[in-house]
């Protein structure tokens, strides 16, 4: 009974009512964010201190963008593989993927970044070196030398940051891909198999194109989240905008300027990207 007035509403077309409704429907939160951003950029253009700060911080923008893009690209690969593993009938693949996902999800990202960059990568280098010695002992000195020559210094903190972010996000994306694949009805796989396609071919041509389309908005949201989480790589002294801001504030004591600008830079990026995701969502819905 309570729903009845709602059903009637569209029929009544009184100008006063509709304009009130229009005002209520405006995305005020968005207007507020735009105003904040515009105001901060106005200050940057008029205030010398802010201007200097901005010019210093924007040097880190390329690292932030590059780290996010590369990490997300690799994370999609990890996520797709682990997502396929999660639905695999193979006991080994299934459990390995599950282990990966649960392990990563149970540890804070900050801890994972420290761990992968400062424990994981050095251990990997050690085992590469050991493999090199082992190969050299067996007379394969040419191959052995390649592996023993690798040192910790060869692997930059930027590369470690990217490995850590992509390995971590791969686990989150795996769950998205798994859900996407499982959302496709069983009949699709059966129809593909009945035409003679193998499991892999059915996945590639029939299931995944539909599944990925379904999860595009979710992937977009995780991309936005990664833009923000990329700030964590500053703990490895990777010079992204967060790290550059810290350095600048630390030496000039312009904390207020540095962190206001830093916050607005992230805000600008994430709001624009979120709008993109919403647009994508709407477009996909129209095509359905």
């Amino acid at each position, binding site marked *: 009974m309570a729903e009845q007035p709602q059903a009637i509403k569209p029929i009544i077309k009184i100008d006063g009512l509709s304009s009130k409704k229009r005002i209520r429907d405006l995305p005020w939160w968005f207007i507020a964010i735009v105003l904040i951003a515009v105001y901060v950029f106005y200050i940057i253009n008029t205030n010398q201190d802010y201007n200097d700060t901005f010019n210093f911080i924007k040097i880190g923008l390329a690292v932030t963008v590059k780290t996010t893009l590369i990490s997300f690209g690799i994370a999609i690969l990890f996520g797709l593989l682990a997502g396929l593993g999660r639905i695999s009938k193979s006991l080994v693949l299934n459990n390995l993927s599950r282990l990966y996902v649960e392990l990563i999800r149970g540890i804070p990202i900050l801890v994972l970044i420290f761990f992968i960059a400062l424990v994981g990568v050095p251990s990997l280098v050690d085992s590469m070196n050991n493999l090199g010695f082992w190969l050299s002992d067996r007379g394969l000195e040419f191959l052995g030398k390649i592996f023993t020559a690798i040192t910790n210094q060869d692997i930059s903190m930027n590369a470690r940051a990217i490995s850590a972010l992509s390995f971590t996000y791969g686990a989150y994306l795996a769950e998205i891909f798994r859900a996407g694949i499982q959302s496709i009805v069983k009949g699709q796989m059966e129809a*593909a198999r*009945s*035409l003679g396609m193998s*499991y892999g*071919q059915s996945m590639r041509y029939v299931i995944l194109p539909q599944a990925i*389309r379904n999860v595009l908005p979710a992937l977009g949201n995780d991309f936005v989240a990664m833009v923000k989480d990329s700030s964590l790589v500053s703990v490895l002294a990777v010079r992204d905008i967060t790290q550059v801001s810290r350095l600048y504030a630390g030496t000039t004591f312009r904390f207020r300027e540095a962190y206001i600008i830093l916050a607005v830079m992230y805000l600008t990026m994430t709001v624009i990207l979120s709008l993109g995701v919403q647009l994508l969502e709407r477009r996909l819905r129209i095509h359905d």
Partner: protein
Amino acid sequence: MTDQKPIIVVKDLYKYFGEIKAVDGVSMDIEKGKVVVVIGPSGSGKSTLLRCINHLEEPTSGEIWIDGEKLTHAAKQINEIRAEIGMVFQLFNLFPHLSVLENVTLAQKVIRGRSKEEAKYIAMEKLTRVGIPEKADAFPANLSGGQQQRVAIARALAMDPKIMLFDEPTSALDPEMIKEVLDVMLDLALEGMTMVCVSHEMGFVRSAADEVVFMDFGKVVEHTTPDGLFNNPQNDRTKLFLSQILEH
């Protein structure tokens, strides 16, 4: 002699889903060019039997031979044999992200290795045959149920199958669309396609079937001709079932 050899042999087939005996010891031979309609109450195992023939369900035990070749559990062999067996589903199962034409050309390109032009040529030929060449560029969501099912038949035919399996192809259709699908099936039957159909369309049984199999509780109760079914049913369960579906 070779014509006399059955193209489908089912031998002591059992399929259990846990405690449920979906197919409980079925044996039958189907000769080339024959149209066999499987009828029976729901849950009698007719769909499961059909799905075992192309291994969409893996039999619990028993043998299936297709065109002289025994089905094993080897994935490669199963894939190859499935390409020779077209299947039409109750819910059509067209690929919604592909156009009608792409639905019909996909497996041709991937499995048969046909070029884009060749696959398209064959696809248009099959779409013409089922009567909807003008829908080639449409997407499945924009077609009626009957049209979708005809595309599904064209998709299966494009692989040049030796056998066609129909799993209740008209059960999900509005009454006015049943005829257009049955007409296509009848056409196929007249051309000598080997067909195994799970269907309750008695009109189709009368006009197209060579043999009728009545199943109940996973067993074949009666394997007869349409004439034998309608005029001289042997088993009480068959009689009861027929009286129920022919009543109205």
